[in-house]
C-alpha cells in the first residue's frame, strides 16, 4: 500500500505487524486513546531489600523468560556497558526470542551480534543501529523486523501500548539502595536520564544498575524509587571516555563554516529571530559553528533565546551561562561541558523523552520550537530526509529526534554538504524516507539554499536577503552534473527493517542488503 510519501509498504508487513501506513505528519492529531499501564508488584513490607547480588539474580527475580521485551537507554552512548552485560547473562541462561527495545544502539553493542545469529535476540526496536548490528540486520540475520523509531516515537509506542517492556534495565550513574537514580555524579556521569523515564513508568519490572551506590536518599532523582524493583551494583556501567567527549573544537573546515554562516544568516533574517525565540541544533561541525555564529548575532542585536531544547553541547551551555538563553531543556549531553553545566546552572534542566518529543501526549517541547537545525545523510527533491540508511543500502544511522523536531518546529533547516565524496546528498529520491518532506522547510548546502515551495511565506521573507537561494532541483542537478546520476540502490526482497513514523505508522521499510552485481 502506497503511503503519503509515495513509498510502497508491502501488505505482508502490514499483516505481520498490524501497523498502518503513514498518512501525513498530523493525521493522528486529536485522536483519543487510553494509555497502557505496567503490572506493578506492591512493596508494602519495609524490611524487604531491593538490592540483589548480580544481574543473574535480578533476571531470575524479574521472571525472565523466552519472548520477553527488554528496555535500555543510550545515555552512555558509545561507552555503554549495560546492554552487553545484561544480554550476556540472558544468553548464558539460554533464554531465546528476546526483543531489545532500546532508545538507541551503537557500535558499543557489537557483542550482541552472536546472540542475533543464535536466536537469543529476534527483535530489535531502536532509534537506529550503527556498527555490526546494523550490518547484521541489513543482511537479514535478525529473525523479526527491526523497528526504527524516533525518540518521541519510542515514548509514544510504549505509552500507547504498541510495545510493552517486560523488564527495563536502567544504567544509573548514581543510585541508592531503594532505587533513586541520578544521572550526575559517579564514574559514568551522563548528565541526564531523559530517555529512561518512560521505561521506569511503563515497564513491568525495573532494574537499576549502577557502579556508584550512594547513601539514601539520592535526590533529586531522575528515576524515582517508586518505579524501581531492584538495584544491582556492578564494577562499571560505562566507559567515561566514550560517554562524553571533551568540548569539540570549533570546526576549521571552511565548507562547514560557510554552511553554518548561511544557516545563521537565514535564521536571523527569518521572522522567527526575535526576542524569546526557541531553538534546537545538533552537534555536527556545521551545527555547532552555526550556534556560535548565531550567538554572536544575538549579542549584537540584544536578542535572547527563551529556551534551547534537545541534546546539549558546550556552545549552547556557554550562551546559557552568559545569559543569552533563558532555559535549556536537556535530553542528552554530548560533551563534558554540557554534563558539568547541568550541575552548575539551575536554568539547565533535564526533561523526559515524553516531554521532549512524544507526539501523542498533551503537547511536547518540540511543538514549541521556532527553529531546528538538523543534518541528514540524504535529502531529496520532495524535501524528504534519510538519516538511517547509507548510500549502499546499509542501516547505519539513527532517527534520534530528527522527525520529532522537524514536525514540531515552525522552521526546520537541514544542513548537508552537496556531496560526500562521490555520493550526492541531494537526490531525486532518498534511498529511505525517515523524515517526511512536509516537515522540512529549508535545505542548506555550500552550493546554495533551497526553500520548500510549500513555504511561500519563507520565500517571501527572504526576498532581498543576500544568500545563494536556488531550488532543490537545481541543487540536485548540480550534484549530478559533478558526480553523475546515481543508479538506484538495489535491495533483496525481504523486508528487514521498518522505519516507523513518530505517530506509529510506517513511513518506509528497509529491505535486505544486496551485494552489487553487474548485469552482464
Amino acid at each position: 500500500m502506497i503511503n503519503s510519501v509515495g513509498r510502497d509498504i508491502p501488505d505482508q508487513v502490514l499483516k505481520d505487524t498490524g501497523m498502518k501506513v503513514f498518512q501525513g505528519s498530523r493525521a493522528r492529531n486529536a485522536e483519543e486513546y487510553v494509555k497502557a499501564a505496567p503490572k506493578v508488584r506492591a512493596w508494602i513490607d519495609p524490611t524487604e531489600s531491593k538490592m540483589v547480588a548480580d544481574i543473574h539474580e535480578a533476571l531470575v527475580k524479574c521472571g525472565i523468560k523466552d519472548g520477553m521485551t527488554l528496555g535500555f537507554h543510550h545515555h552512555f552512548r558509545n561507552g555503554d556497558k549495560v546492554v552487553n552485560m545484561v544480554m550476556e547473562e540472558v544468553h548464558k541462561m539460554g533464554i531465546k526470542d528476546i526483543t531489545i527495545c532500546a532508545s538507541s544502539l551503537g557500535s558499543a553493542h557489537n557483542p550482541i551480534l552472536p546472540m542475533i545469529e543464535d536466536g537469543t535476540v529476534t527483535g530489535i526496536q531502536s532509534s537506529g543501529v550503527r556498527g555490526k548490528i546494523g550490518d547484521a540486520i541489513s543482511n537479514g540475520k535478525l529473525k523479526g523486523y527491526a523497528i526504527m523509531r524516533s525518540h518521541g516515537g519510542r515514548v509514544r509506542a510504549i505509552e500507547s501500548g504498541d510495545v510493552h517492556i517486560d523488564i527495563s534495565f536502567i544504567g544509573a550513574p548514581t543510585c541508592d539502595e531503594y532505587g533513586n537514580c541520578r544521572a550526575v555524579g559517579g564514574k559514568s556521569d551522563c548528565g541526564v536520564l531523559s530517555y529512561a523515564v518512560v521505561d521506569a513508568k511503563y515497564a513491568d519490572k525495573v532494574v537499576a544498575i549502577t557502579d556508584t551506590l550512594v547513601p539514601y536518599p539520592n535526590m533529586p532523582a531522575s528515576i524515582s524509587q517508586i518505579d524501581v524493583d531492584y538495584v544491582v551494583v556492578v564494577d562499571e556501567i560505562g566507559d567515561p571516555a566514550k560517554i562524553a567527549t571533551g568540548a569539540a573544537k570549533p570546526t576549521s573546515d571552511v565548507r562547514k563554516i560557510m554552511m553554518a554562516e548561511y544557516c545563521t544568516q537565514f535564521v536571523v533574517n527569518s521572522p522567527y529571530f526575535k526576542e524569546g525565540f526557541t531553538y534546537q541544533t545538533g552537534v555536527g561541525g556545521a551545527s555547532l559553528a552555526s550556534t556560535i555564529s548565531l550567538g554572536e548575532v544575538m549579542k549584537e542585536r540584544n536578542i535572547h533565546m527563551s529556551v534551547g531544547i534537545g541534546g546539549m553541547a558546550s556552545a549552547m551551555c556557554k550562551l546559557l551561562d552568559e545569559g543569552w538563553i533563558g532555559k535549556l531543556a536537556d535530553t542528552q549531553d554530548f560533551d563534558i561541558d554540557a554534563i558539568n553545566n547541568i550541575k552548575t546552572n539551575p536554568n539547565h534542566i533535564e526533561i523526559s523523552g515524553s516531554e521532549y518529543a512524544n507526539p501523542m501526549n498533551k503537547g511536547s517541547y518540540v511543538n514549541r520550537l521556532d527553529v531546528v537545525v538538523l543534518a541528514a545523510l540524504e535529502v531529496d527533491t520532495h524535501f524528504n530526509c534519510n538519516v538511517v540508511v547509507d548510500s549502499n543500502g546499509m542501516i547505519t544511522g539513527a532517527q534520534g529526534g530528527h522527525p520529532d523536531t522537524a514536525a514540531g518546529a515552525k522552521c526546520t533547516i537541514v544542513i548537508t554538504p552537496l556531496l560526500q565524496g562521490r555520493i550526492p546528498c541531494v537526490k531525486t529520491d532518498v534511498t529511505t524516507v525517515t523524515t517526511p518532506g512536509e516537515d522540512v522547510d529549508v535545505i542548506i548546502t555550500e552550493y546554495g539554499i533551497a526553500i520548500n515551495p510549500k513555504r511561500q511565506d519563507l520565500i517571501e521573507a527572504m526576498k532581498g536577503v543576500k544568500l545563494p537561494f536556488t531550488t532543490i532541483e537545481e541543487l540536485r542537478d548540480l550534484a549530478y552534473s559533478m558526480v553523475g546520476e546515481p543508479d538506484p540502490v538495489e535491495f533483496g526482497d525481504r523486508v528487514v527493517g521498518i522505519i516507523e513514523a513518530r505517530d506509529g505508522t510506517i513511513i518506509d521499510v528497509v529491505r535486505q542488503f544486496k551485494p552489487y552485481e553487474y548485469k552482464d
Partner: protein
Amino acid sequence: MNPNLKRLRRTMMFLNCQKPGLIKDPYIYKPDSIMLDLEDAVAENQKDAARFSLYHALQEIDYHGVERVVRINGLDTPHWQEDVRVCVAGGCDSIRIPKVEHAKDVHIIEEAVRKAEDEFGREHGRILLMAALESTLGILNAYEICTSSELLFGCALSGGDYTKDLQTKITGTGVELNGARQLMIIAARAAKKQCFDTVFTNLDDMEGFIKETEMIKLMGFDGKSIVNPRQIAPTHKIFTPTEKEIDFAEKVVKEIDSKKAMGIGVFTVNGKMIDIAFYDGAKRTIDMAKAAGVYEGDL
C-alpha cells in the same frame, strides 16, 4: 592584449594536483585564482600521475571563472617540458614559473608554450605567465624579469626559498622579507605588472596572517598566495575598499568618462581638480568592490 593580464588576483590558492579531493571544487571558496601545483606539493615519483589528474581537471571540471594557474616544475628539473605540454593541452589560464632568476628563464617557458600551442593547435597568447622569485638573484633581477614578456602578468615572492638563500628564516616579523618585498613591488610597478606576496603557513595564527596581509596591501601588493581556504575571506576583506573609497572612485570614473566624451580634459571631483592618473586606480577600486560584492552602482 589578453584581458586576463590585469584581472583581479587578491587570493591565489595553492592546491596539490595529486589530491583529487582538493581539486574537485575549490571554487566554492571563491579565491580569485587557484594554483594547481605540480612542483613542491607533488612527490618526485608522482610527477607523472599528477599530470593526468591535472589534464582531466582542466578539461572536465568547471571552475566557475576562477583563474586556473598551474605551477610547473623548475627549469632545473627533468619535468618542466612535459608540464608545459599538459598545461597547454589541458587549457589552463596561466603558468607560474618557479625559481626565476633571469629574463631568459621566462623566455624559455614562453617558447615552450608557443611550441606546445602549435603542437596542440591552440591560439598563441591565450596562456599567461607569472614568475616566482625565490632567490636573492631573482629579487635583484625583478625588473628585468617583469619586463621579460608581454604575456607575463606579474611576479610573486616565494619567501621560504628566498630566506634560505638569504641565510636566514621566516621569523614572523617580516624583517627578513622587507628588502625583497620593497624591491619587487617597485620593479613590478615600474614594469606595470602585478605583484604577489608569499604564503603564510601558520594556519593557527590568523592574527599574524591578517597583520601581514594588511601590511602588504599598504605596500602596494595586488594579492597574496594562499595555502588554505580559511585565509581567503580575511584577505578579501582587507582588499575590499571602504564606502568612501568606492564613492570617490565612482565619481572619478564617471567624471573622466563623461568629460572625455565631451572632449574636455579638465576633471573635478568633490570640488577638487583631479588628473587622468587617478583613472586606473579608480577602476581597480570599483573592480575590487564588485568582486567583494559591495558595489551596487551602475559602472
